[in-house]
């Protein structure tokens, strides 16, 4: 644990760059900075089905996909290109789908997801999806706010926990979820089969968007003079439209 603490204390979170490099001297509120710091630590920690080294390798592929100035089309696997390092520890199929989720998520079909799950396992796929979505949030936040994305931390040694709750097949998702299925929205239950990813994702959502318990309040705002719900939904709708996300 001392080693973990030591390593983590040296990690600069994405939002710490906002404070140091500055967006005109802007201070990023503490909850957002903390959520992003924890997300970066989480990427480099042993997961439930992937080691930390594997998680960082997959996260690096997702970042490559997001930053790629000349992106591959969705039907071309990134492992068939020369864009990844030659020596890799993660299976090609996982890198290919990580790149696709990073750059062309709307094109991921049930058949594509099923084929990947058949090769790497359903819950490893769920964890991969969560790595991709959390990397996308941090990388895009840095770009949006105009600050540099920090490198991923060094991976922490350790084995995946391989722990999971009782599972159920869902009607509202392709992936298995924690039982009982379909009692909450599809996006809320999507990562419940891998609880560590569920916690990380919704901690980020609370800070980036709004706390879950406040979603019922149409007049919610983070502070006086801050974004209104309607202003937030304008931003959300436009991003979702440009990402062609029907859900």
């Amino acid at each position, binding site marked *: 644990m001392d080693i973990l603490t030591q390593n983590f204390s040296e990690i600069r979170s994405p939002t710490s760059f906002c404070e140091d490099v500055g967006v005109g001297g802007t201070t990023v509120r503490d909850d957002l900075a903390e959520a992003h710091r924890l997300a970066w630590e989480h990427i480099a920690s042993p997961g439930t089905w992937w080691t930390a080294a594997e998680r960082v390798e997959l996260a690096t592929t997702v970042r490559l996909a997001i930053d790629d100035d000349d992106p591959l089309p969705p039907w071309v696997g990134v492992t068939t290109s020369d864009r990844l390092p030659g020596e890799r520890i993660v299976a090609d199929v996982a890198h290919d789908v990580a790149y696709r989720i990073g750059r062309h998520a709307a094109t991921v079909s049930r058949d594509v997801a099923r084929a990947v799950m058949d090769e790497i396992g359903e819950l490893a796929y769920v964890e991969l999806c969560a790595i991709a979505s959390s990397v996308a949030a941090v990388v895009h936040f840095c770009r949006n706010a105009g600050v540099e994305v920090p490198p991923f931390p060094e991976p922490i040694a350790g084995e995946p926990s391989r722990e999971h709750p009782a599972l159920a097949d869902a*009607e509202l998702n392709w992936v298995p979820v924690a039982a009982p299925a379909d009692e909450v929205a599809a996006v809320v239950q999507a990562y419940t089969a891998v609880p560590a990813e569920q916690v990380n994702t919704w901690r980020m959502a609370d800070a980036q968007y709004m706390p879950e318990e406040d979603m019922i309040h149409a007049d919610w705002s983070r502070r006086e003079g801050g974004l209104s719900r309607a202003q937030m939904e304008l931003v959300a709708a436009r991003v979702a439209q440009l990402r062609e996300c029907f859900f």
Partner: protein
Amino acid sequence: MLSWSTATTGGEVDLAAVAAGEGDTRLERGDELLRFATACATADDDELARARAALADVSDEAFMVDAAAVAANFEMMTRLADSTGARLPADRLERSAQAIGVMGADEFVSKR
């Protein structure tokens, strides 16, 4: 995430303007927010820098950072939804039908 998001706007936003990326959104600072959101999800870094500055000019930098965080959140949630095959229940789809049509979402490859 489009159907889910537009169902929560309560009709306050002119979705046709959002869909077009221009026009009167009927919201305070709507022009600047729409320009910023568009720039966040497209590849022109110079335009993003201009849109970021324009938004901060009509609000403050904390407001801009919060908008940047909301946009980032939906970069996360769109990937979550599309990689895990998230679907809306039929009743929610029905309630969102008009917004889906206005936003052109019926044509999305991710419709399922």
